[in-house]
């Protein structure tokens, strides 16, 4: 474990992104295999076994860690791919696996007791009691906290549980309780729970309608953008809906989370690690975000104020930023 101010955990959708993240100053990277065992199962993304071994070697050579996400829920008909993924992660020398399903957690605990287990945000463990359940039964060493908790909630949980916590620091915000959101499968038949794909691109289309661009998910119209309006990910929770006769971003605006201005508060709350979201984003995104957070964390570690400018707004979803649930009144 590094003795940095806060551990910086960064996404790697490809081997090239893993290099970019490590080179930009990540302490840890997280990634997935090329199948539905992880929650970013998108075409052209993720690692085959050869790339995974190479990536882990690169990280270890630089004194950094790699976590492998196996955080979807196996289908009843065939749980084997998830068990195989855990076996592969152990064989590749991963520093930890990030899991959500009770059955997979049990498999990992029984078959690879020495493989560090982290609890994924997909387990939606939003309180001390549920985290303690996973601790007691599967000896999880770290929990990724859902994006619904305020800083006060987080510091209470940290005191109660005594294990490491990882919180989202930057990237897209999913406003629903993770791991049990069926909006995508309601509209497309494909789900983040077992297919690892929320609003997959194969179901998304954009159409020009006059001077607007319409985004559709399956046959459902999600949104309409005028020429200079910022766009959002075409997920059901970022669509525009009409309630009480008024159209609005009912669930969440097209906006990205950025906690760079409240890092000391998170540190004071006892958080161990910051998680940058975005395995589906490019090398350019990873480099820019990771290096900005790296400089900020290094400044804070020296006891100095943050000197790096927060120039991450443009890279955020919708070109706008929020503190999300960390700020009171978000509900």
């Amino acid at each position, binding site marked *: 474990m590094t003795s940095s101010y806060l551990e910086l955990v960064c996404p790697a959708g490809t081997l090239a992104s893993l290099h970019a993240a490590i080179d930009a100053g990540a302490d840890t990277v997280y990634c997935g295999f090329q199948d539905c065992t992880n929650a970013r199962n998108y075409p052209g993304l993720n690692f085959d076994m050869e790339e995974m071994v190479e990536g882990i070697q690169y990280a270890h050579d630089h004194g950094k860690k790699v976590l492998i996400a196996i955080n979807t*829920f*196996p*289908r*009843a*008909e065939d*749980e084997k791919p998830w068990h195989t993924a855990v076996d592969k992660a152990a064989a590749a020398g991963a520093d930890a696996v990030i899991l959500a*399903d*009770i*059955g997979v957690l*049990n*498999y990992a605990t029984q078959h690879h007791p020495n493989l560090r287990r982290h609890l994924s945000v997909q*387990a*939606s*463990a*939003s*309180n*001390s*009691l*549920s985290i*303690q*359940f*996973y601790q007691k039964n599967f000896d999880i060493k770290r929990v990724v906290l859902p994006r*619904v*908790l305020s800083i006060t*909630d987080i510091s*209470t949980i940290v005191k109660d549980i005594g294990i490491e916590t990882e919180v989202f620091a930057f990237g897209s915000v999913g*406003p*629903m*309780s993770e*791991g*049990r*959101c*069926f*909006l995508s*499968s*309601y*509209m497309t*038949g494909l*789900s983040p*729970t*077992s297919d690892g794909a929320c609003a997959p691109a194969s179901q998304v289309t954009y159409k020009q309608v006059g001077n607007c661009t319409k985004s559709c998910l*399956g046959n*459902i*119209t*999600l*949104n*309409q953008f005028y020429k200079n309006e910022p766009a959002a990910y075409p997920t059901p929770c970022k*669509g*525009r*809906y*009409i*309630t*009480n006769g008024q159209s*609005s971003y*009912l*669930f969440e605006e097209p906006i990205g989370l950025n906690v760079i201005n409240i890092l000391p508060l998170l540190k004071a709350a006892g958080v161990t690690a910051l998680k940058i979201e975005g395995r589906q984003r490019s090398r350019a995104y990873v480099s820019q975000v990771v290096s900005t957070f790296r400089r900020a964390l290094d400044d804070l570690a020296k006891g100095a104020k943050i000197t790096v400018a927060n120039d991450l707004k443009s890279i955020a979803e919708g070109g706008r930023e929020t503190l999300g*649930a960390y700020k009171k*009144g*978000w*509900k």
Partner: protein
Amino acid sequence: MSKTKSNIKRPLSYLTLGPILFNWEADKRRDFYFRIADESVFDCVYLGEVVCSKREPFFENDLPGIVDRLRAAGKSVVMSTLALVTSEQEMDLIQKNVEAGLMIEANDVACLQVLAGMPHIIGPYINIFNKSSRDFVVHQNATRIVLPVEMNAQGISVVAERGKVSEIEVMVFGRQPLSVAMRCYHARSYGVNKDSCQYVCGFDPNGLAAETLDGQSILTVNGTQTMSHGYVVLIHELERLLSMGVSHFRLSPQNIDMVEVAYIYRQVLDKKLGSDEAVAKLRCLTNSIPYINGFLYAREGLAWNENHT
């Protein structure tokens, strides 16, 4: 002598009334439950607040009376918990309900920590999608598992395998809960936020309709919960589910005559009413709300599979 059809024992089927998910006033709830006790064919009734702990204080005093009336009518009673637990008060409430000795339907894993091996029911908000998870919770003394609404037929047949868990429950009527959150979308729709919500969810006893920009009715907002627009209706599939090992069939209460809805489902399960006729009767009770069954057929949830095979 060859076995005749009448010799093969038909598995027992139970009708359950899911917890009221909407914000109904205390009087309305109490009258509703008294009628369910006196007139309905439900075998088991779920009580308690699943969506928002702010609603709880308004009806909690009526619960003991409702429990007594239901039990006197021969119905078993289960206390459902919140689906998303975050505060100390919410955790204390779970503790209180467990200590009161009621059978608990656990909708957040926090409950499992409190229950610590006592017999309990796993609710549909805890993800049990496969055999390994099922076996784990059964080992921890889960006596009934209510399957997630997203599960398809193939998944159900694997998890519901006879002899592996005492009871399996599937939701066969009502608006399907699709997600739960901390943020209150009902409040947002009325221009306020959760902390100063004025209980606007009380305006919509069947949930608040949300349409797409094209005017297509697509979702229903209910406090912090988002639901389908259509009602899931699995009348044609009751027999098939029964043969897979499903023992309990949940009707989720909507603001309609649930006594009559239960009667229709019971008649189909007892083979006294055909499926097509039953659906036709049901349509008279549900106004023009579309029916859906997509999840069961591994399709988009909002689809209605006419074929039923």
